């Protein structure tokens, strides 16, 4: 257990140090995501959210909450798939596969580092939102819990893309497409009633709904929590299985060292 913890911490430290050495990457993330958020606000996106959650006049806060959830989710996804592509190009992927713990634990460390960096981005967006638009956000325990559970599921989705990236290598465009699609199919920008069947099996949709209900003082039933847990665990289990099969396929076909 100590060995696993030690290695995950080493991965977080390594990843953070590397990210801070490429400061422009972090700055561009902040600029792009803040501008995108500003664009959504000025286009009056999500104006019906307040009405749906019985919280009129608070649509912008609910939009901001969904947007923050989405930005963490895309960090969780790219923390797996993009990182695998980058490591394959750099050549360090094979060294990581020779670690004394399974590779997905190293990825988990990398995702934690991505999420920490996303927190910086989220802090800037929240500050921007508060200072320029006058929209603030109150985070409570239920919001944090639903975010963490959502991220477990999104990590599973990232593992599926990561497995694909081990075999097909350059899937950055596909990853980007999925990240953008998530913005539109997970009720992040608006709320459909009821959510579509596909949307309902994406952890981000379920997590968004719970977090918004929480800040709107709507009672969240056990079934809704159970749904979030089940959906997230499903993605996590399927993602882990697919990643395991893909890494075995890559080792069988000598694909780990290619890019």
């Amino acid at each position, binding site marked *: 257990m100590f*060995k696993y913890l*030690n*290695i995950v*911490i*080493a*991965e977080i*430290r*390594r990843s953070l*140090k*590397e990210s801070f*050495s*490429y400061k422009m990457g972090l700055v561009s993330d902040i600029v792009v995501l803040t501008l995108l958020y500003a664009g959504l606000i000025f286009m009056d996106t999500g104006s019906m959210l307040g009405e749906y959650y019985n919280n009129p006049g608070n649509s912008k806060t609910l939009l901001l909450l969904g947007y923050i959830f989405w930005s963490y989710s895309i960090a969780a996804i790219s923390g797996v798939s993009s990182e695998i592509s980058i490591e394959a190009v*750099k*050549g*360090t992927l*094979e*060294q*990581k*596969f*020779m*670690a*004394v*713990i*399974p590779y997905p634990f*190293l990825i988990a460390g990398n995702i934690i580092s991505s999420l920490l960096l996303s927190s910086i981005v989220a802090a800037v967006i929240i500050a921007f939102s508060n200072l320029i638009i006058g929209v603030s956000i109150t985070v409570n325990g239920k919001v944090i819990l639903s975010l963490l559970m959502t991220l477990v599921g999104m990590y599973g989705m990232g593992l599926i893309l990561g497995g694909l990236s081990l075999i097909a290598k350059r899937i950055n465009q596909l990853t980007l497409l999925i990240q953008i699609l998530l913005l539109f199919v997970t009720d992040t920008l608006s709320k459909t009633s009821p959510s579509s069947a596909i949307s309902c099996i994406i952890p981000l949709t379920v997590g968004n709904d719970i977090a918004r209900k929480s800040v709107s003082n709507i009672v969240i039933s056990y079934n809704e929590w159970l749904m979030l847990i089940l959906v997230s665990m499903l993605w996590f289990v399927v993602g882990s299985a697919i990643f395991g099969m893909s890494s*075995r396929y890559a*080792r*069988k*076909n*000598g694909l*780990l*060292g290619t890019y």
Partner: protein
Amino acid sequence: MKDLLTVKNLYKKYNKSKIIALNNVSMDINKGEIVGLLGPNGAGKTTLLKIICGLTIPDSGEVIVSNVKMEDKTRLKMMEKIGVVLEGNRNLYWAISVLDNYYYFGSIKGKTGREIKKNIEKYADILKTKELLTRKVNTLSMGQKQRVAITASLLHEPELLILDEPSNGLDIESRILLTSAVKTLREEMKITILIASHDVDFLRKTVDRFIIINNGNIVDEFANINITAEDIENKYKIHANLKEA
């Protein structure tokens, strides 16, 4: 001497290219030996190394390191016994310092910070990388990167060190340093070393024994005594990199 590495009847065919990369390859390496795996490009050297270090799964055959057979359930544990520097400068994170690389690679091999610190003292001295600790990897020369990568691969104190084409792109001074460091590692640390290369001259100055591989087959093996690079080149048609270091 006792075998540290045993390879038995390894067979590997890549489905896409239909090429037989290894054809029933068997070999043994004794504890404390430095062995040169010599062959031209495409002979199967890298495939053999990657199977030994668990990165590639063979179609059949087995790899035994220090009496433990490489299998799915033993692979991670076996990573503690093996240190690997793959071909090129693809073994380090270039944007962070040498010291950060050391702590990272030592950690993922299961060592604590204290153990890594102790081993940096030990191995950075032999590989002459002590003065590079605070430098970012992207500021180092090829030779320095190679020595740093080897130091990083040793911080978990492996029993077997595998080097793939370590002399590629090195100048004469770096080759001399590398040859001397490899010999010191064997003499002082008792590490068994397997070096894959097509650089006859470098191997001739470094190894105890040659294993010749070509077209996926082991075609010969012999002790490195009274043999010249020209002999090897003429007999096996492997181009000798005849830089006199």
